[in-house]
């Protein structure tokens, strides 16, 4: 199985640790991982701003970089959702469709494709798990509080394999953090207020770390935690599952 590693632009630039953990975790699980170096971005920043018509270049690059692989894995629910829903190629619509179905968010790749049942990881800390909306409501990584349906959580089931970890409960299990892509600057006041409220929920329940499947939400919450002078850290779920000790 040849797997292409897709590292979203802002993770590449600002959170290489999350990307390295993703790579190492997949390698540990025996996956043949390749990182095509000319990749950039899924195109979501433009598309969510109403400029989907400017994402042609990103689509073209994505197809060029990843079409050859059996699967493409990315440590992000949001970017994967964008690819799944919007990757297109006017010249070869079928190729884009085929590729978009091969793209997986990391935790669902572990649970659904690799069918991981144990992980050699230890993380003896109180951890708050943030449900990033696009992964949860878009990719159905876990059940949504609005629906009358059985409970499940793909990332949650993986975290439960980690030795010593204590997942804290939250008042609002799946409320949005307010990042929202360009929303975070276009609607700065509401975005920050949403982030502050999310962070408070985690802090009030004793979180030492906040984790999740999307670094973007975590970056937003980290910015607020830092500004508040909090010692609580954010970590991408790959870093915990990879057995990194803090």
């Amino acid at each position, binding site marked *: 199985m040849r797997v292409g590693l897709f590292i979203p632009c802002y993770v*590449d630039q600002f959170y290489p640790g999350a990307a390295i953990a993703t*790579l190492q975790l997949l390698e540990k699980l025996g996956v043949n991982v390749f*990182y095509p*170096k000319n990749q*950039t971005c899924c195109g979501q920043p433009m598309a969510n701003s109403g400029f989907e018509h400017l994402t042609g270049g990103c689509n073209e690059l994505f197809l060029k970089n990843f079409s050859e692989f059996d699967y493409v894995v990315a440590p992000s629910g949001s970017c994967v959702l964008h690819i799944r829903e919007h990757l297109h190629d006017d010249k070869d619509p079928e190729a884009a469709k085929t590729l978009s179905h091969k793209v997986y968010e990391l935790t669902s790749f572990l649970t659904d494709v690799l069918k991981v049942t144990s992980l050699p990881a230890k993380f003896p800390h109180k951890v708050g798990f943030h449900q990033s909306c696009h992964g949860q409501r878009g990719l159905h990584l876990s059940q949504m509080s609005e*629906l009358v*349906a059985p409970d499940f959580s793909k990332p949650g089931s993986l975290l439960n394999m980690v030795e010593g970890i204590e997942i804290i409960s939250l008042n609002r299990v799946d409320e949005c953090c307010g990042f929202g892509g360009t929303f975070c600057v276009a609607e*700065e006041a509401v975005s920050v*207020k*949403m982030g502050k409220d999310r962070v408070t929920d985690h802090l009030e329940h004793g979180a030492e770390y906040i984790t999740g499947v999307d670094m973007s939400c975590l970056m937003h919450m980290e910015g607020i935690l830092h500004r508040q002078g909090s010692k609580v850290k954010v970590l991408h779920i790959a870093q915990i599952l990879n057995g990194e000790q803090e």
Partner: protein
Amino acid sequence: MSIETKDHAELAETFNRDENRVDWHDETLWWIRQKRDKSVHQLPEWEELRETASQIKHNVLSNLSSYLQTFEANAIANGVKVHWAADAKEHNDIIVGLLQAKGIKQMVKSKSMLTEECHLNDFLEKNGIDVIDSDLGERIVQLAKEPPSHIVLPCIHKKKEEIGELFHQHLGTPAGNADPQFLTETARQHLRETFLVRKAALTGVNFAVAETGEFVVCTNEGNADMGAHLSDIHIASMGIEKIIPERKHLGVFLRLLTRSATGQPITTYSSHFSQPRKGQEMHIVIVDNGRSVQLGREDFRNSLKCIRCGACMNTCPVYRRSGGHSYHNAISGPIGSILAPNLDMEKYADLPFASTLCGSCSNVCPVKIDIHQQLYKWRQVIVKNGYATTGKKASMQLMSFTLSNPTAYHTGGKVGRWVLKHAPFAVNNKFNPWYKQRDMPEPPQASFGEWYEKNRKSK
């Protein structure tokens, strides 16, 4: 975007200056979302009900013209007079015409978001007709000379102390009294008097049954009934999308409506009106006002399935923290944001962007409108129609260029990280909205791409 009016982001920023109030507003509406959750989780068939309702409405929208004609024929046969209004102006003209023909100068009105959409109250006032809103929340915002901030809970943005003060000014209650029970009783007495003397009553319509020509009005206060039963003339205003095919379909919609809205199993009053009582006139005004245009927009037609429960507002993390008035439209929140651009794309160009696209609205919607997908699609339509600012266009073009060219992207990333490390003041300043209340991420030594070149390239 028009420069004369403030957009959602600016209005939301103003709302957020009083953080305690934002917390109070957020918690009040979250409490209602929780009541909804508790209530719907008692019904194992909830998701099936939603799907059924969505399909019934799908059928309605696909056969709207014939259902409307059936409804009209049956209503006429019941002795009701039916009027058709192409837009808000025609709707308002019809109502004033009906009142003036009878020399009526006063009217009582139960809740109708359609009349808010048509700005009927202002129009009646200009024509010398005094209108009193009989829904308690509507009455409160009417006294405050404000529009409702929520379609089900019109005065949810007001604290009880503020309502006490309003009642003190307008209804003569003692200053400083904010006891909800006392204030409600005062309003009740005041409205009783109104019901007894008004000759005309206007109600909204929650469901119009094509099969029977009857319409159903749902209230918790019984105010629609009080107004309609005592009036000489009962006028009901309805949008063309209020149709349901048969009476039995109410069994689906009435179970969904109030559970979604407030968590109640059903509205206190679900009143069926089919014919005028002896000596009374009953009129139905069927209003289009942009709905047929929306019906023609393939991506947005499902928005017409809306039964106005307000669940999307209660669950929306943005609505809860920006308040209904920040949407500057009669219908606020997520559903308002997909309905409004159809009416005036320029004026409401900001609304589809007032969302993180978290998707919670679509999940609570009792008729399964894909609200957050429509928000995304409206963004594309608005930009294509030229309603994006020049600055935004330029920055998006630059972003697109950089992200379409690996070399530009790698260089740009390197420069960006260097600046953040060595000249943070260039980024950490008041011109950066991120930095205002959040720190920037720590720039790493190397990007992942650079790390990979060093650590894996040889393999």
